[in-house]
């Protein structure tokens, strides 16, 4: 009796495909990946039973040395039941995510990003504020001094406006950046309502591939 290579190859392929799918963002793909992974593992478990042999049933005239090891099969049965339960839970979670946010992508942790970027934001804001204040002080001193410096005042005012615009622009960009991560959540109910009427979840999930 010889071991079969086919089981190892199939198990390995399923494992590889499952891992690839697990690295995707949509929960549905992760779900499919986990199913493939589970099945691949089960097939690999089967290989530990050794070469093919008679069914492990006593009392059928088979010699105990010619029957296959039944323990891996018991492992597989247990693992299948567990995978089923986990798959059911993941399906529910993917559906709930889609229902709430119109997409079943796994989202980044907002708090994590916030903490990571806080230092950068603070620094930039301080710098811009300082620049703006300089211009404003210059402008105010000019305003306070002479009537005939109106031209200089206008120039300074324009420069002030420019500095303020730039400050605001950068500030807005920073804000938009921080908000972008919540964009999906923000359009939650609207998208869910729209898509509930016209198309099916599969459209949303597989839409990226078309």
């Amino acid at each position: 009796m010889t071991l079969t290579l086919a089981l190892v190859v199939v198990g390995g392929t399923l494992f590889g495909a499952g891992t690839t799918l697990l690295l995707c963002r949509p929960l549905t793909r992760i779900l499919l990946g986990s199913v493939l992974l589970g099945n691949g593992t089960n097939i690999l478990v089967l290989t530990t039973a050794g070469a093919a042999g008679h069914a492990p049933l006593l009392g059928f005239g088979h010699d105990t040395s010619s029957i296959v090891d039944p323990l891996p099969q018991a492992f597989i049965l247990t693992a299948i039941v567990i995978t089923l339960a986990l798959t059911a839970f993941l399906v529910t979670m993917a559906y709930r995510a889609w229902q709430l946010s119109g997409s079943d992508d796994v989202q980044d942790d907002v708090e994590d990003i916030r903490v990571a970027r806080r230092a950068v934001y603070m620094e930039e804001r301080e710098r811009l504020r300082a620049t703006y204040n300089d211009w404003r002080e210059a402008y105010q001193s000019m305003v306070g001094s002479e009537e005939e410096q109106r031209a200089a005042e206008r120039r300074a005012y324009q420069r002030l406006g420019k500095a303020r615009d730039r400050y605001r622009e950068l500030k807005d960009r920073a804000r938009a950046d921080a908000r972008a991560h919540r964009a999906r959540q923000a359009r939650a109910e609207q998208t869910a309502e729209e898509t509930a009427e016209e198309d099916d979840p599969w459209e949303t999930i597989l839409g990226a591939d078309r």
Partner: protein
Amino acid sequence: MSAGPSEAASVASALVPLPVILPLFAAGLKLAIGLRLQRTQRAISIVVLSLVVIVSLVLLVVADKEGPQVMYAGGWAPPVGVVLVADRLSALMLVVSTSVTLGVLVYSNGQGMADREGATPLSVFHPSYLVLVAGVSDTFLAGDLFNLYVGFEIMLVASFVLLTLGGTIARIRAGATYAIVSLLSSVLFLVAIVMVYGATGTVTMAELPAAIEKLPDGVTTLMEIGLLGVFGIKAAVFPLAAWLPDSYPTAPAPVTAVFAGLLTKVGVYSMLRSQTLFFPGTRLTDVLMIVALLSLLVGIVGAVAQTDLKRLLSFTLISHMGYMIFGIALATPEGFEGAIFYVAHHITVQTTLFLVVGLIERRGGSTDLQRLGGLATLSPLLAVLFFIPAMNLAGIPPLSGFLGKLGLLRAGVADGSVLAYVLVAGGTLTSLLTLYAMAKVWNLAFWRAAPAELYEVGAVLDSEETDEETDESEAEASREQGETGTAFDTGAPASQPPVGSGRAPEEAHAAVGTATDTGRQEAPAPAGHTQAATFGGQQVTTTTRLPASMIGSTVGLVLFGLAFTALAGPLFDFTGRTADELIERTPYVSAVMDR
């Protein structure tokens, strides 16, 4: 059982499966009862968990006096049947974990009633919680690797449900991260078990030591890496810990507390068991040491950077895992002794701290340190409840955190290798940085003057716009609009963005208790991610008088934590005996095999 067990021992071996069976039975009973008989249901949960605590205590005493207690499920012999074993380590873990889960259950009852969420916790939370307890007990008692896997899975499935209670977007996001990582670790665990089975032909833990000794070193190391990797994910040690601070903080306080206290320690327990029983002459000592060091330092540096209290505590959890891994990596009796003591201490302290955070959220409406303040005057009891476990965690001398760290550091010095000394230094630094992080929490949340809105109890701090940058820039924008461009003040934002308002006033009123009725109070939005505090994922209503059962159970757990300090002498004797038993290996093996 030919070893001539006494009457007490044979009774005790019949008790071994009870910590698994009783909670499962209670969970089934609750599902059958459904939403009726709420008071009876709460009583069932508490009575069952109290019974489990008593059973665990009996097992602890018997296992200490008579050696490991073994239960052969269905009377089948070890290679085929399922074996449950309660030795000193298992029994100690059982006692600590069930005591803590009982405390958290009482706390969650208080919270559920305070939030007027009678039905939700009972129909979903209680059964899942009991299944979780059963899963944790099963992993501690499992006598074979496959049963350990099943125990992990029972625990995981229950934890998925607990983490996504209420199904809000924040919790689904957190749950997705957690579920995917857990799923992957389950698959890897199965692969590791199959590897062990393929190499040795058995998964019974008691048979494995003899079988593994016959294997070549390479195969043993491969098996060890497989198992350690899986247990490392569970225990959240540094390179495998990124999932933890992403997923834990959004859950309700009792859930986060019990997860932080128990689920990671299950990984540490499995490591202790596998390293002592299967791989005594491990070649991975140095790797484990480096992992421990990185865990300690990266975790605590992460904690210092956080502004959200729950996340801060999650990072200290990762950091302090390093201490236990350090003890395991040393692989000396002193190292194991220290690690076991530290596990017992850390389960209690970490759980208590998360429960206190739940109380802080109930008083201050947020867990964001930038929004809290003045709690020491507003609620002195809360301050004391936070202060004791925080100092315990940091390792201030008379407390058990100090004793545990001291034991580990002494074991490191006794080991004498360069890496061990580096770890001793790293451990000391981590202890100091933990103190710094706790001092930061203390200063911001308790010691400084309270923001005005904290006085207005009964307000529901709603969080539509949740970003400090957004808040400030909006405040600035509104200020700029109000001015004519000449008086642009760059000081601290003076105006508060008028976002958020009271929840349904009658609900707020109902939960206020003696507090003044300010249900419709306008409150500024908290920074940080969307808070989700109650079981249903809603915001808590802040109150001045905290529910008695929540305070009571927290006080109980603080005292339980202090008991480790008071009983440190006998406890260290016990953990010493446990470490000896683990290293000797024969008591465990012969208890199972000599039937």
